[in-house]
């Protein structure tokens, strides 16, 4: 069935059954993924998929429904479902359908050149990465995850207030994890790349990074468990930021789920700490020109030199506080109801190199990886206690890798403990970025 005709039919039927406002959101995606193991294709996946999300105001309440099966029955399925869902809601909560912003950016997130890279080129490349990683050092005993994936996606948002928006994006991601073994000691190390420019990928450089990360983790020692000054490497810092992103959501604050409620204008971090959301950042793969309800996106300063400037808003939360939406309505897909999420959220970089950040530390810990973030963090209390990998710093230099650790602290204290910020801003998949960050102290427990 033609999707344009389907949308038209859906909006028309919605009006007929009594929806005062209605919106159709459509996504279509293609993806390719290949996994290599010992020089052979271990798995090979392709996909072509799509779905339609419908939402509409019925008697002042917003009902949702979605389907991945687009056939003659789907219109009724969506309309009846959304109506039943609207009816069960409590009174109108301020949700509406948006008529459109005045101006939308035309920032492109699609590369024709990337779309034309052949599958055989991609396979040859990722095989090369595996081969070079295995050859990096005799102690690299295996590569346990070696994947190249690419994707492209079209989004269309149409509503009965005359708004019709669309965009298109593509990208390519490479993941590799190597296992290094020395005697009984086993360590893993990896590298991740996200790009829209296939030519800029360098198999040697990726292999060296993964190999080095695994090998340099060998030779671990224990250190006394106590509080240490900490350098959070850019990727570890970005993943901690990602875990605590809900604290910057106005929706969470309005529901008493974030301690940042009522803190606009207050100092919540050190002067060295600024937090920015930029949907157009050239280094980040993701981003968007319009948000989940069709509001034009823009660069937003959330924390400026330690002072909280705004939380992330959609139209509903903005209306409650009498401000404008910041363009952060989020729809993870056509299957989702509307919530709030950043575009590309990052800690603003400073000017120091990593050597300079470390130079003044007599005894400290460089954290290179965090795990267990989904369970070891509470966005409500701000407490975190998560597993970490990293190195002992002695007299301003890396001394040796430390046995498995946990680091524990509180995110609100953490923002107030940022002593200085490095210049090496990098993004991790998912749209979060950070430079390496020096923090006054965190509790470190060593296995």
């Amino acid at each position, binding site marked *: 069935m033609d999707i344009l005709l389907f949308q038209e039919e859906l909006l028309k039927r919605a009006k007929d059954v009594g929806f005062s406002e209605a919106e159709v959101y459509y996504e279509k995606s293609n993806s390719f993924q290949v996994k290599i193991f010992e020089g052979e294709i271990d798995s*090979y996946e392709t996909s072509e998929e799509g779905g339609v999300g419908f939402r509409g105001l019925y008697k002042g309440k917003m009902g949702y429904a979605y389907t991945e099966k687009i056939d003659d029955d789907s219109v009724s399925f969506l309309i009846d479902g959304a109506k039943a869902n609207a009816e069960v809601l409590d009174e109108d909560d301020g949700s509406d359908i948006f008529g459109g912003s005045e101006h939308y950016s035309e920032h492109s997130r699609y590369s024709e050149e990337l779309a034309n890279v052949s599958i055989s080129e991609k396979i040859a490349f990722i095989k090369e990465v595996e081969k070079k990683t295995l050859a990096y050092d005799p102690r690299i005993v295996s590569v346990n995850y070696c994947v190249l994936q690419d994707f492209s996606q079209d989004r269309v948002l149409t509503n009965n207030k005359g708004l019709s928006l669309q965009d298109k994006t593509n990208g390519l991601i490479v993941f590799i994890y190597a296992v290094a073994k020395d005697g009984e000691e086993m360590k893993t190390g990896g590298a991740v790349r996200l790009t829209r420019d296939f030519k800029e990928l360098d198999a040697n450089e990726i292999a060296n990074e993964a190999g080095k990360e695994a090998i340099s983790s060998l030779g671990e020692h224990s250190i006394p468990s106590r509080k240490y000054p900490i350098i959070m490497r850019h990727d570890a810092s970005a993943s901690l930021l990602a875990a605590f992103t809900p604290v910057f959501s106005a929706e969470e604050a309005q529901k008493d789920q974030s301690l940042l409620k009522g803190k606009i204008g207050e100092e919540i971090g050190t002067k060295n700490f600024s937090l920015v959301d930029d949907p157009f950042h050239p280094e980040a793969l993701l981003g968007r020109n319009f948000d989940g309800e069709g509001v034009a996106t823009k660069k937003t300063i959330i924390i400026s030199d330690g002072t909280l400037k705004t939380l992330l808003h959609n139209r509903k939360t903005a209306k409650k506080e009498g401000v404008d939406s910041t363009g952060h309505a989020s729809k993870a897909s056509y299957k989702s109801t509307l919530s709030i999420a950043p575009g590309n959220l990052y800690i603003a970089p400073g000017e120091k190199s990593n050597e300079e950040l470390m130079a003044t530390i007599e005894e400290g810990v460089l954290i290179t990886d965090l795990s267990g973030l989904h369970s070891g963090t509470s966005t409500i209390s701000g407490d975190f206690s*998560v597993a970490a990998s990293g190195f002992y710093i002695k007299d301003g230099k890396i001394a040796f890798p430390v046995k498995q650790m946990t680091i524990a602290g*509180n995110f609100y204290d953490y923002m107030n403990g940022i002593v200085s910020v490095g210049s090496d801003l990098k993004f991790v998949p998912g749209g979060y970025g950070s430079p390496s960050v020096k923090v006054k102290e965190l509790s470190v427990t060593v296995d």
Partner: protein
Amino acid sequence: MIKQSIIENVLEAALSTGGDFSEVFIEDKFVNSIELQSDKVERSISGRDFGIGIRIFSGLQNVYTYTSDFTEEGLLEAAKRAALAISGGGNGIIHPLQKEIIKPIHTIAQLPQTVEHARKVAVMRKANGIARNYDERIRQVGIRYVDEEQNVLIANSEGKFVEDKRVHSRLAIQSTASDGVEMQSGFYGPGAHAGFEFIENLDLHHYAGEASRIAVTMLGADECPSGKFPVIIDNEFGGVIFHEACGHGLEATSVAKNTSVFANRIGEKVAPDIVTYIDDGTLPNEWGSLTIDDEGERTRKNVLIENGILKGYMIDKFNARRMNAEATGSSRRQSYRFNPTSRMTNTYIAPGESTPEEIIASTENGIYAKYMGGGQVNPATGDYNFAVAEAYLVKDGKIGRPIRGATLIGNGAKTLQLVDKVGNNLAHGAGMCGSVSGSLPVNVGQPMLRVSEITVGGTKGE
């Protein structure tokens, strides 16, 4: 869902370039999700997931494609596109499809799709009331109700043709407590492979009450000390420790490529005699249960570790090739979007002989982990970590002050060797497990048990 003759044509097209096995997985799933927060029903969405996954093997090559295009042309095109990646010299044969009638082992009394939203919401409001009224320090309560009806059809070139209906229902309660300065939360999320009867029969006073009790208890908790302690882990969701520490390492996903610490060790002593570890997808109506797995194999009771001896792994059809072993009914996928692989269903430590009272009384200076949060493991090294949602100090055989922010870290294979008490009160808890083939409902379970030493990370220091 799709005509048998079309499926046969797709299976054949998939083998056209020399593959030796092809499979079609058709999924038609209905989902309802309702959220209540701030005493209001705020969100309600229903939907239909629909798509087809096509899988081809050629020796140790594994090709997967999926599409939501269900026309014959669309499916044939997808199968041919996937087949292009196969460079096999195999002579795949299509055996005539034989419809297999399976008797479901998990009975569903009330299909959630036939239950009005109003009845679902009534249960949510009741749970909300109980959680709110538990204590005046409860500031916020979120209730999330989810039901899913997943209809699958699995057919393969070996002649398999089988259909199954899986129904999942879950109610999750999150309470937030505040004393004006701090905030703490408590969570409980019972779920089952069952219909609305499960939701209606839930003991809401227990589940909603516990979510609020945890939040309030943690408000007054001390900071967790750091160091090495004997740790008593309570029953039910406490089993998440062995899910992370051993379960993932026993999945063929990592065993087949020798990237697990448990690879090539069948028959070896990997744990003390008191440890027996089982994965059982047949437990009636449990959250992780299935009648057939996602490649159409009957689920079964797989004994992984028996009295400390490694007995078996969880194996799917593809990894069975690399391992030269039989599949164990353990192949799972979140949806048609995922290439299936070996995963856990309901995994648990079998009950032992100690009573919970004895275990606590015999612990001098340790930590009692009453409710666990989630965790994570690096399957290559076996290093795991997980969070404790509610913990207490144990002094001189008695449970003492509550502590917060406890994280346990260690190595799975080593921790397993240090289990020194296994209780007699086995119970199961529902969770979601994320891994290569997506996010899946699994049960973790155990009786109360004690590990003689685990590294505990907290904020208080030693």
